[in-house]
């Protein structure tokens, strides 16, 4: 049992070193992980072995390292599983194209530089047991990695997540993660092909079959875990955790057996787990502590034990290190900065992104340990690469603060807040002619404070993509579709951002853009679906049902400016919203609004209105204010009360009395909500001679 005594001492020493040095690094505004990496090196032959060789041999006798190595491998499996769990495809929403471009260039450029450098380093730092392809691919992969967890932590600490830079960087790092691990899987396959007994064809076909099984069979099956989790009262029980760990181990075993590394299996299983935020967070919470505090420091210590700075002896070895560091920084920082600049970020933002993407941290150490394990890199090269990882991670915070001082971040956050205070309207535009009409409505219905319009032109699948979200002010401007709305915006000093991209599902994209841009209102034009005569069907219907913002559908029959507006009013949030819109328009356009209040025969208006006032929090209309009516300027309002059993007939009849515009809530009362086989459906839309504005209020689900 002597090994157990040694192991306990080793773990205790590792925890003490990693916690104290990690905390010391936090004091100097460095990520704790940098301190933990340094702690590993201090415990190794470079420092402890040099100043106290006997103590070093006592604590870390060579024969005991296999136990530490086993624990460290377990830690890495859990860590990669957590990285997979934290993979969030939503990060890419709305910035996918730009993120993919920046990320891929920021991977492939350092990758290329790594391979170019290999032409020089291969005859100097490798030997004939490793092929050039394996050496060069590995050098490339290890140059191109980004430490997503460190990067996310820096962004969060600097409160940058909510800025444009933070959002783009985190999306890029997410793409980077997946791409870099995929590349590494290929590299490992190539490396193992030349040394292992596992045939390449088995690795490649096995990997493809494994991925297909994971996506097509395992993912749908394990999605049932979410149901089980709900049934257990939204708690990750020990049974669930045990099952999840078993799945992770099975996946890791399979990828190891196939000849790619066990870490890929762990990562992949993490990515396949149900994407329920609470479920994932519960698992991460359970695994994180023991992984971060106990197992990863052991990995850092082992890395440190394999790192012997003494191996970089002589000026030529330090010259190689300088070359490696330069290639890593120029490739990653330079590649990310240039590609980010080309996708419309400013130089400052682009270089900030480049500096952040240059963080390598723990991820680099994981790759290096794989390289050392397979014998692709020697101990001396391993040491140089570890130092490169340390330097690039260490330089991130000071360089970033230099490019992006705290004062500037504060200013950007204030501007972002200011931007959020604007009244934001999304206008999907199909044809150039519809743009200015919708913009006029947007201008008229917006409250008096700042207005921001997002003009969205979606191209169907068979058309060619012309722009992207990240490029709000440049390319799309040239499109003819936007010309009328841009001219109107210029005349009225309205801030309009044109957006355009190809779509497979227009409604889904409109709803997603509305959520990303946090718009207050979506205004859509009349849209006639191909297979239906119905107005409120297809894309419009889907947006009306699913959008997390208020929605207006506009049918232009008479031309603006409108002076005579009718608002049929009966009940509900949508009717009240329609009235509020009418109030805005009346003030902006100096128009008269006729409030047609339809009541049951023999009732009077006061009774009805008093019944409408919410009675308390349980009332579904509690959060709907009636101030719209109370504060409606008298000079713009005419009240017309009609007793009727058929509100729709009455509304259509009165709408025929020379009104320019009818604003109506989206409800069954007005025959607008879909009703199968109903003849009343959309009668108002068909029979009303005036222009029509249909309003649907978004009420968040409680």
């Amino acid at each position, binding site marked *: 049992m002597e090994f157990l005594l040694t192991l306990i001492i080793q773990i205790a020493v590792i925890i003490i070193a990693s916690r104290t040095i990690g905390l010391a690094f936090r004091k100097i505004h460095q990520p704790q992980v940098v301190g933990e990496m340094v702690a590993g090196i201090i415990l190794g032959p470079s420092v402890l072995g040099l100043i106290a060789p006997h103590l070093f041999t006592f604590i870390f006798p060579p024969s005991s390292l296999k136990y530490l190595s086993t624990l460290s491998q377990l830690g890495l499996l859990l860590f990669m599983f957590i990285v997979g769990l934290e993979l969030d495809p939503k990060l890419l929403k709305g910035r996918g194209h730009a993120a993919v471009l920046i990320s891929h260039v920021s991977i492939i450029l350092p990758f290329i530089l790594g391979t170019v450098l290999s032409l020089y380093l291969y005859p100097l730092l490798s030997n*004939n047991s490793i092929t050039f392809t394996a050496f060069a691919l590995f050098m490339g992969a290890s140059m191109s990695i980004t430490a997503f967890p460190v990067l996310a932590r820096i962004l969060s600490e600097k409160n940058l997540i909510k800025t444009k830079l933070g959002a783009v960087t985190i999306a890029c790092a997410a793409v980077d993660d997946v791409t870099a691990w995929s590349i590494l899987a290929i590299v490992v396959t190539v490396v193992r092909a030349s040394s292992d007994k596992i045939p390449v064809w088995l690795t490649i076909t096995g990997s493809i079959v494994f991925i297909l099984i994971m996506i097509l069979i395992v993912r749908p099956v394990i999605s049932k875990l979410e149901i089980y989790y709900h049934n257990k009262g939204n708690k990750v029980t020990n049974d669930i955790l045990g099952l999840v760990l078993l799945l992770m181990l099975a996946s890791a075993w399979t990828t190891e057996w196939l000849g790619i590394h066990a870490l890929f299996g762990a990562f992949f299983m993490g990515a396949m787990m149900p994407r329920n935020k609470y479920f994932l967070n519960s698992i991460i919470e359970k695994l994180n502590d023991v992984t971060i505090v106990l197992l990863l420091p052991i990995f850092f210590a082992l890395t440190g034990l394999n790192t012997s700075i003494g191996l970089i002896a002589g000026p*030529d070895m330090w010259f190689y290190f300088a070359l490696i560091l330069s290639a890593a920084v120029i490739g990653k920082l330079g590649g990310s900065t240039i590609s980010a600049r080309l996708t419309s970020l400013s130089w400052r933002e682009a270089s900030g992104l480049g500096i952040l993407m240059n963080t390598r941290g723990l991820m680099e150490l994981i790759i290096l340990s794989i390289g050392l394990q397979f014998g692709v890199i020697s101990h001396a090269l391993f040491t140089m690469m570890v130092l490169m990882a340390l330097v690039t991670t260490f330089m991130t915070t000071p360089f970033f603060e230099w490019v992006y001082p705290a004062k500037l971040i504060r200013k950007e956050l204030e501007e972002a807040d200011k931007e959020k205070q604007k009244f934001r309207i999304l206008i999907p535009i199909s044809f150039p002619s519809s743009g200015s009409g919708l913009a006029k409505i947007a201008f008229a219905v917006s409250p008096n404070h700042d207005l921001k319009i997002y003009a969205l032109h979606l191209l169907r699948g068979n058309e*060619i993509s012309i722009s992207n979200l990240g490029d709000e002010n440049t390319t799309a401007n040239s499109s003819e579709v936007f010309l009328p709305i841009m001219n109107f915006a210029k005349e009225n000093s309205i801030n309009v951002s044109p957006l355009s991209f190809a779509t497979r599902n227009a409604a889904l994209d409109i709803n997603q853009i509305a959520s990303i841009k946090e718009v207050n209102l979506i205004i859509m034009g009349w849209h006639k679906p191909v297979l239906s005569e119905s107005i409120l069907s297809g894309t419009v219907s889907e947006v009306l049902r699913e959008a997390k913002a208020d929605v207006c559908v506009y049918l232009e029959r008479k031309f603006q400016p409108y002076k005579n507006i009718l608002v049929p009013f009966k009940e509900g949030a949508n009717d009240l919203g329609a009235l509020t819109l009418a109030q805005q328009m009346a003030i902006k356009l100096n128009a008269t609004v006729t409030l047609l209040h339809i009541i049951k025969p023999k009732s009077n208006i006061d009774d009805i209105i008093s019944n409408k006032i919410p009675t308390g929090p349980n009332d579904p209309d509690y959060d709907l204010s009636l101030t719209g009516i109370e504060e409606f300027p008298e000079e713009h309002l005419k009240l017309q009360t009609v007793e009727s059993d058929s509100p729709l007939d009455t509304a259509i009849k009165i709408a025929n009395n020379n009104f320019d515009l009818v604003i109506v809530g989206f409800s069954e009362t007005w025959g607008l909500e879909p009703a199968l086989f109903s003849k009343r459906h959309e009668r108002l839309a068909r029979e009303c001679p005036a222009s029509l504005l249909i309003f649907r209020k978004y009420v968040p689900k409680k």
Partner: protein
Amino acid sequence: MKIILLYIIMVGILFAALLEILRVGEKIKAPLNVSGKWNINNISYGDNSNDCIGILTNTKNSNFLIDQSGIHLTLIFNNSAKTEMQGKLENNTMTFHKIFSVTNEGIKNCGKRINVGLILKIISDNEYPDKLTGAWYVLNCSECGKINLSAVREQ
């Protein structure tokens, strides 16, 4: 369109460059792999050599480890002091140098610091060499003779 064009240009060109680099690199020759444990199977001492540098071989089962990083080598003797020497591999020859401080009176006419060299020649001509021959010598002392040795690689 701009993004897609940029993507094709930037990623496409770089990918083509990568393939070209790999093609060129396959023609480059790397140094022979000499890393690992080598057992000394034959040793012969020249004049006074045991007095001068016999300490390097004063164990029963003399062997040494070579840690290789390309042409850069670190040799660790399995003696009581675990003596380390840095060296280089050029073609089929490894050369190492180290300056030792002598703790006793020193060797006659040589002073207290001796500059020890070690030359090892690979004598097997396969891709995975398994036989070496060579000699230790003292550069700054003509009084000390060579220690000749041969070694085989532990499989």
